[in-house]
């Protein structure tokens, strides 16, 4: 009996309501437009909204007077189909990009969607197939796309950088830039600078060697690669011992850098050294781990660095954003580190201007106003448990702070929880986790805050306390509002000047992503991804069993 002809397999997305195409709005996104991103506040053209990383939207239609009327305009749901890598670890961490009414956003497991930013209608989707056995330290996550010259750029969990046609969602070029056999992966949102798309690497918990790569926007040809751990003989190599430690040194770059076009310098944060907690196998400062590196955008050359935590044995990555701002005529950057301190640096040369704590409990050590570090609690003895604050997820993890040029205040999500670490030496084997310790993060006696910090003094201007750590990015707007989501699902709006909680909406799932603002046809929206997960056992273990969601909410004022 002849077989019934079942035909050819089709894209699963064709069996949905997606339209299959987006307007050609991204064609006109040029470097020059991204340079002036804040001059077109209806759009959110680059990861932080602008190169300075301030996560500030000038839009003020939604403001302290009317925010109490904010309601959901639409919701985009994106639950998974089939079996995915790290199924218990997914989280919706992305920042959407909006260009002239079209939203581009990534999900976990290498999904990308183009949506109508006014209605939430799905326009196209792209899915990179991800090996189930991809090494992941902390979760099946992705932080977003970059858009320029008609293309949408994103990285895949298995360490490819991919360019998609922004109209069709079809792949234009695809470059692998990490070795999954070595334990590398990728989660960063790319950064477009000039004619390059620039990406960082993940894998610091597997003893890889961190790097930043620049690719040609049009062709995908690699232009430069900069390693964030020097080889023997290179500057900084004297901070590593003889032997193989440097080759497994970590310093990964899994959070997008910021960029000063006048100085032509990018500021990328680097991750922890490997092994995370066993410092005796890598004596020395271990450059450029836990640092900000100022990189010449054209060549990838490191011009200067500042190390926030030398010889880290607490897993205090410094990958999180370095926010560029000017104060009293000085070009500065502000950085909230996992180690619990807020740093202000001169961004022309890396000189320390100010350092101050932004969390209540810091026991690992102390940094005095001159930047001198006194180490106090370290997991030095094999098999001996030590407890310290902040825990390895830090007083602030990768989730972003914001800066409002209206209030001249920084706004930071704070995690106040400790951890017990017991050093346990292990042999290095490529592709196997390389922590050098047993780790238990506190699930009791924890709290969180949203805090406003004055960069002139380092002092806290206001503080809003939460029962659980605050583990999502904040957004500041021209309406003098600060938005921040909670692990328990509430999405909050605060008065940026006083910290008063003005509005709250329960989204049904914890927040571990980044809200943003845009407008279409004169109507302002606040968009926020909700999808609790990732390294929750690190930043809020008491919420490990919280509801799991997969939704992007857009809020607006009623017509």
């Amino acid at each position, binding site marked *: *009996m002849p*077989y*019934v*002809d*079942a*035909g*050819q*397999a*089709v*894209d*699963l*997305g064709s*069996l949905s309501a997606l339209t299959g195409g987006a307007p050609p709005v991204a064609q006109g996104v040029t470097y020059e437009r991204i340079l002036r991103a804040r001059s077109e506040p209806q759009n959110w053209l680059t990861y932080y909204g602008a190169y300075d990383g301030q996560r500030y939207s000038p839009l003020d239609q939604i403001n302290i007077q009317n925010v109490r009327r904010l309601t959901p305009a639409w919701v985009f749901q994106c639950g998974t*189909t*089939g*079996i995915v890598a790290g199924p218990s670890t997914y989280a919706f961490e992305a920042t959407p990009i909006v260009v002239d009414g079209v939203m581009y956003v990534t999900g976990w497991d290498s999904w990308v969607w183009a949506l109508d930013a006014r209605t939430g209608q799905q326009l196209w*989707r*792209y*899915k*990179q*197939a*991800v*090996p*189930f*056995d*991809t090494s992941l330290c902390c979760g099946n996550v992705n932080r977003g796309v970059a858009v320029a010259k008609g293309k949408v750029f994103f990285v*895949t969990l*298995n*360490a*490819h950088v991919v360019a998609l046609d922004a109209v069709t969602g*079809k*792949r234009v070029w*695809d*470059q*692998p*830039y*990490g*070795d*999954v*056999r*070595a334990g*590398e992966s990728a989660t960063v949102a790319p950064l477009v600078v000039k004619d390059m798309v620039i990406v960082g690497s993940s894998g610091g918990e597997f*003893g*890889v*060697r961190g*790097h930043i790569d620049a690719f040609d926007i049009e062709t995908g040809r*690699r232009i430069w690669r900069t*390693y964030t751990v020097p*080889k023997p003989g290179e500057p900084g190599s004297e901070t590593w011992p003889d032997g*193989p430690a440097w*080759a*497994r040194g970590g310093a990964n770059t899994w959070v997008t850098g910021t960029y000063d076009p006048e100085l032509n310098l990018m500021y990328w944060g680097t991750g922890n050294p490997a092994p995370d907690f066993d410092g005796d196998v890598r004596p020395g400062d271990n450059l450029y781990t836990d640092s900000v590196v100022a990189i010449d955008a054209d060549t990838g050359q490191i011009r200067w660095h500042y190390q926030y935590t030398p010889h880290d044995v607490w897993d205090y990555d410094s990958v999180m954003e370095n926010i560029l701002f000017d104060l009293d005529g000085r070009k500065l950057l502000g950085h909230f580190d996992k180690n619990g301190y807020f740093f202000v640096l001169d961004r022309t040369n890396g000189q320390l201007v100010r350092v101050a704590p932004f969390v209540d409990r810091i026991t690992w050590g102390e940094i005095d106003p001159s930047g001198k570090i006194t180490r106090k609690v370290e997991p030095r003895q094999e098999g001996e448990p030590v407890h310290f604050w902040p825990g390895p997820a830090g007083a602030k993890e990768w989730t972003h702070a914001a800066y409002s040029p209206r209030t001249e205040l920084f706004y930071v999500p704070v995690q106040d929880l400790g951890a017990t670490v017991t050093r346990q030496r292990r*042999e*290095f*084997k*490529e*592709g*196997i986790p390389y922590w050098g310790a047993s780790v238990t993060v506190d699930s009791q006696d924890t709290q969180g805050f949203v805090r406003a910090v004055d960069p002139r003094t380092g002092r806290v201007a206001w503080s809003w306390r939460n029962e659980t750590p605050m583990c999502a990015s904040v957004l500041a707007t021209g309406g003098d509002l600060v938005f921040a989501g909670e692990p328990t699902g509430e999405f909050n709006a605060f008065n940026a000047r006083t910290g008063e909680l003005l509005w709250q909406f329960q989204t049904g799932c914890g927040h571990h992503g980044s809200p943003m603002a845009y407008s279409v046809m004169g109507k302002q929206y606040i968009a926020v991804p909700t999808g609790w997960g990732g390294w929750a056992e690190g930043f809020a273990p008491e919420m490990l069993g919280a509801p799991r969601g997969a939704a992007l909410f857009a809020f607006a004022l009623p017509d």
Partner: protein
Amino acid sequence: MATAVELSKVVNELGLNKQNKATLGRLLTHGNLGQAEERPDGRMHAEVRIPPDELTWDPAIVVMPHGGDLELTLTNDDDNTHCAILPSNGDLKFIWLPNHSRGTATLNLDGPGYYWFSSGIGNDEGRGLVGVIAVMGDVPAEARLDRPPQPRP
């Protein structure tokens, strides 16, 4: 305690390789293994089928020697209707597999690593209609780290 060498034998003895015997369904990926054949143009080809009343893919493990394009022929010899959801760069692929039907899927996979595919209706997945496409090989040299060779497990 069974060793890895004895595993298939013990699985079969216990009836974990059958429908509604030891457990309700068949233990995942304990079917046969097939290797994709590479054609002169570099594209690869493999076949999988659903035997009658077994609720399994045969082979349940398809091995590609390296990343690239795989043309997969899917045959449903069962007296029930199934489908296939398959991994591929661009989007998941879907094909409906009525009783006694045959179709094809063209997949593009990076590798190295392994990918699941399944029949996504009812609980076909839980009963055993889950398979693996295992891609061998390495990433290109230009994507690897500049460091000396490191020990592996």
